[in-house]
């Protein structure tokens, strides 16, 4: 009897080893299948095959058509619509590098880099921990390219940086007149603001949230930041306005992105993102004529 009891007690402990070996196999298999970096696509419109010719001629002008174009040049972004142009949006380009050594970011003006004849930088960016990035491959470490919006009175004016208040989720605030908010004092609980997305009007609050109410606080303190306004946001604001105003036009969803030869792909995607968010789904790409 006693012997039987002891046997039963021993059986209680389950043998986990086979399960463990199964898991050790399963985990690596799943790990290899996991995509930590999710990829998406951005579609562009290409003219139909028959229309593609190497000397593309512009279609005849249509008075009702919007003919919206965003031009990206080295110093400014410009929007053309209906044959006219809106004021140029000057910007200062900044490259943000993420250092592998300390996982921190450093900001550089791309104009400061000097290149030797092999195309490697002689003065590559320096990380905060003192290490320098590789002169040849430092461009791989660019995390993002930011365009800081500049206010310029004239062609000679070097310009002053515009500021704007950004929310916790990094979107710019707009006030009731559809203007960017440039001072922190306007962002307080009870204020009604909007962001650069559709029907985004919301009331600010501290410590509470709900439909139409945004909690701007973290640990009881407002967590909004005042920083350099992005030129992308300026363009986004104008594009949203144009899209709402010319919704009846036959090409209300079309936009053409024009760029200089040496514009980085990243900037094009940036502009395409803003255009798509504003409601222009049919994106065409075009090239600035040489010297233009």
């Amino acid at each position, binding site marked *: 009897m006693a012997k039987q009891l002891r046997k039963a007690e021993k059986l209680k402990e389950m043998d986990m080893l086979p399960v463990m070996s199964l898991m050790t196999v399963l985990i690596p298999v799943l790990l290899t299948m996991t995509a930590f970096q999710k990829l998406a696509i951005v579609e562009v419109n290409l003219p139909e*095959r028959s229309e593609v010719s190497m000397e593309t001629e512009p279609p005849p002008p249509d008075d009702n058509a919007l003919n919206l174009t965003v031009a990206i040049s080295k110093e400014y972004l410009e929007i053309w619509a209906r044959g006219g142009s809106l004021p140029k949006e000057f910007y200062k380009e900044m490259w943000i590098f993420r250092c592998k050594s300390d996982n921190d970011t450093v900001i550089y003006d791309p104009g400061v880099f000097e290149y030797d004849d092999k195309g490697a930088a002689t003065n590559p960016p320096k990380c905060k921990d003192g290490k320098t990035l590789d002169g040849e491959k430092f461009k791989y470490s660019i995390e993002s390219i930011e365009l800081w919006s500049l206010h310029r009175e004239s062609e000679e004016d070097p310009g002053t940086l515009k500021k704007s208040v950004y929310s916790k989720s990094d979107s710019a605030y707009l006030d009731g007149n559809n203007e960017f908010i440039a001072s922190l004092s306007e962002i307080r609980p009870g204020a009604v603001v909007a962001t650069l997305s559709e029907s985004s009007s919301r009331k600010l609050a501290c410590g509470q949230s709900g439909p139409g109410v945004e909690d701007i606080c973290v640990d009881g303190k407002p967590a909004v930041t005042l920083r350099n306004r992005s030129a992308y946001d300026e363009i986004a604001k104008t594009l949203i306005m144009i899209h709402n105003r010319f919704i009846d036009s036959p090409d209300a969803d079309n936009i053409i992105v024009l760029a200089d030869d040496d514009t*980085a792909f990243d900037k094009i995607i940036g502009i395409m993102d803003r255009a798509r968010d504003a409601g222009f789904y049919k994106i065409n790409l075009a090239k600035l004529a040489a010297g233009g």
Partner: protein
Amino acid sequence: MARKARQYGEEAGLSLTSMMDVMTIILVFLIKQVDTEGQLITAAENLVLPNSTSTKVPRDVSLGLIVDHNWVLVDGQQIVETKIVSEQDSLLVEALDAVLKEKRETEKQAMLARGESDEGGGNIIVQLDKNTYYDIMYKVMATCGVSGFTNVAFAVNMLHAEE
């Protein structure tokens, strides 16, 4: 003496329960992460894709075109040096055009064999480094259009993966 030995034998067993807990959590986490649809595009190794707010994921199998710092590749096959593309004046990259036309022809044949119209298809996903000049991008895109791949899409990193 014999008794002592048995004591050792009984205490030597590893406690696997806590390890099991950890493993189960990791397992659940990984299963949640694994995309049920699978990835239709794989990121090329030596380039950095730009970040984008786009949430559109490729639905159809497409031809993959990669432009890195040194080479233009179609389906992993080196076609033409990127330097040559950036230096030429013409918008049409001839070497690339020849390869793409061939691929398009094969695609059309396959579609006809399946009894579909050969009008469809023509999907191509282009992967470009975020520092690639617009000039190169434009030439590659124009070539795709000429050779029959009219559904051009650019691969980007999804900035806000759906929560």
